[in-house]
């Protein structure tokens, strides 16, 4: 305050008036705040704080509620049984393997495309109408309700625009040692579901990968060019290795989101009641016993963990509420594994940064 007042030339300051003017009264009023206003200040802060913690409160209530409902029902046989008409025998094995196949295939499909698109936008097409078009398109896609993706997947993958409506084909693909039968249209198969989920994950993966690429300073690229590397060599051997942790974090978060998606899979025609795992693989050991199952699985019918939860929640029998709660516990545990992995990857990528 002193510094400010000494800066003002004394000549321009009007002589202080003897009587307190209206404005000085205002200042005094502000200084001596009435009790009511103090309470208002505090009340506002508490309201805001309470609103922030409200979400946590609901989360805690939700978790306690689900634990309470599902506690006795989450047993080992629940994880290894198929769905059943008797609630005490119902289990999630079909949903677990279904979700595993869906999410794995979707990740395999979406990661190369998503990272490729991010590289194109960040390293190649850094300006121009094409980039604007793709960017606008991406930000709009991120806001499209997931059920609309389900409709797209149903029309394009399950029914293939009705091209094979009257004569469904069975395309036989020979791999030399064995062969795969691919149904056309894909129908209500794991592959249709995985491709739909891949489209749903794509915007998330692209956005995360772009952020990871953008965080790398241009000087690193310039150094690589100066050594005579081509554009692609620079990306492949210099830029991408540094960006990997960031990309991995984004992919895991996208996977966690896809694993909980229900609506698009319902549109694709996930089975509500299914006593079969994709390809007949019920445990990792089955892969060795029945290796051909790996090739059959993508073209098999499927159900998924969230679909089973939806089915059990909508059953009228009250026992199924407990079954649903137990399945929710399994789903939340799986998602938590993804989230923890993502945060570890994020922490790693931060500590690894060397510039």
């Amino acid at each position, binding site marked *: 305050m002193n510094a400010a007042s000494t800066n003002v030339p004394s000549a321009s300051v009007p002589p202080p008036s003897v009587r307190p003017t209206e404005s000085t009264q205002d200042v005094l009023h*502000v200084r001596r705040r009435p009790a009511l206003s103090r309470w*208002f*200040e505090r009340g*506002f*802060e508490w309201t*805001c*704080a309470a*609103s*922030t*913690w*409200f*979400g*946590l409160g*609901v*989360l805690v209530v*939700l978790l306690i509620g*689900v634990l309470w*409902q599902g506690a006795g029902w989450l047993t080992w046989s629940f994880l290894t049984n198929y769905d059943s008409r008797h609630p005490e025998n119902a289990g999630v094995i079909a949903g677990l393997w279904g979700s595993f196949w869906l999410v794995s295939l979707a990740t395999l499909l979406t990661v190369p495309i*998503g990272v*490729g*698109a991010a*590289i194109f936008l960040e390293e*190649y097409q850094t300006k121009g109408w094409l980039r604007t078009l*793709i960017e606008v*398109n*991406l*930000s*709009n896609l991120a*806001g*499209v*309700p997931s*059920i*609309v*993706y*389900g*409709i*797209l997947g*149903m*029309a394009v993958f399950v029914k293939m625009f009705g091209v094979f*409506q009257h004569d469904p084909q069975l395309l036989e693909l020979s791999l030399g040692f064995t062969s795969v039968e691919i149904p056309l249209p894909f129908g209500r198969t794991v592959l249709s579901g995985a491709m739909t989920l891949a*489209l749903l994950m794509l915007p998330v993966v692209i956005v995360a990968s772009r952020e990871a690429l953008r965080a790398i300073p241009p000087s690193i690229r310039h150094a690589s060019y100066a050594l005579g590397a081509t554009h*692609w060599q620079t990306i492949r051997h210099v830029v991408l290795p540094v960006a990997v942790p960031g990309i991995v974090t984004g992919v895991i*978060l996208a996977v966690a*989101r896809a*694993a*909980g998606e229900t*609506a698009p899979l*319902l549109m694709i025609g996930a089975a509500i009641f299914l006593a079969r795992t994709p390809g007949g693989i019920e445990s990792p050991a089955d892969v060795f016993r029945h290796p051909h199952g790996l090739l059959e699985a993508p073209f098999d019918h499927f159900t998924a963990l*969230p679909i089973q*939860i*939806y089915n059990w*929640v*909508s059953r009228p029998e009250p026992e199924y509420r407990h079954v*649903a*709660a137990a399945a*929710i516990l399994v*789903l*939340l545990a799986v*998602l938590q594994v993804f*989230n923890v992995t993502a945060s570890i990857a994020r922490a790693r990528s931060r500590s690894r940064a060397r510039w």
Partner: protein
Amino acid sequence: MSANALPPIDLKRRFSVMRVRELTIRALLLGCALVSVLTTAGIIYVLVTEALIAIPPEKAFFQEVSPVEFFTGTQWTPQYQDKHFGILPLLAGTFLVAGIAAVIGLPIGLAGSIYLSEYASRRTRNLIKPILEILAGIPTVVFGYFALVFITPYVLRPIFQGWLGFEVNIFNAASAGFVVAIMIIPIVTSLSEEALRSVPQALREAAYALGSTKYQVSAKVVVPAALSGILASFLLAISRAVGETMAVAIAAGQSPTMTLNPFQSVETMTAFIVNVSFGDKPQGSLEWKSLFAVAITLFVMTLAMNVISQMIMRRFREVYQ
């Protein structure tokens, strides 16, 4: 290290293996980027050919049902013998649920963002942000379960049926609206907080210098300065609420009625789409096509909200950067 050891490099050579490889890779990457554009094109193509204009032998929904009947009809009975395709009951259900979600979720989300940006210490912020992320990552089907199994029987029924005498249906818009509110709170909080934090510190300091209190600075200076960003987050959240499917399909019911009573069973647009895809409706039937007519309405609504939200955000960025 003698220069003679290296073969001479022809810098003017235009066609080399390396250059062809570079161009091929570029084309492949362009293909990857175009997948997202194709997705949008696919969505629009599917919705338009089934709902608006079909390829000649087929007939689209609006070529059989007049758009006037569709947008002004008050009866939605595609599964009955006497079919009526008036989308107003579905719109009413959608807006009832989204409205309840907005009334609960937007103020709480905004207040939370004010706390995080203006009041909370760094430690508190680092504690709360991951919790919000967990909340945002909970699958919607779990929220549907929560609404049906906990909110309606343990919260709504004791309060509104036991004390206040309303009749609370087991499927009702209020429980669905409540859980959708929980879902949009993390969106509003994190996006609004970003907007509030990007308000320049000088504005706050100026307000304090005039003798303002913390409340006055927050509510009368920072919030108005970030208003466009906050509005954008609100629009995005409402669009999410309108497009939300599973929680609403489980908790709000399946009866398309025109009502403003939050304790009655309603049907939203998304719930109808799920229910039609459930039963094996023959492809090409009018009921089947009505799914696409509802979907295109939903798509256009959410798209419009997202586009407006982005326009507001872009304008807001120009102001302070």
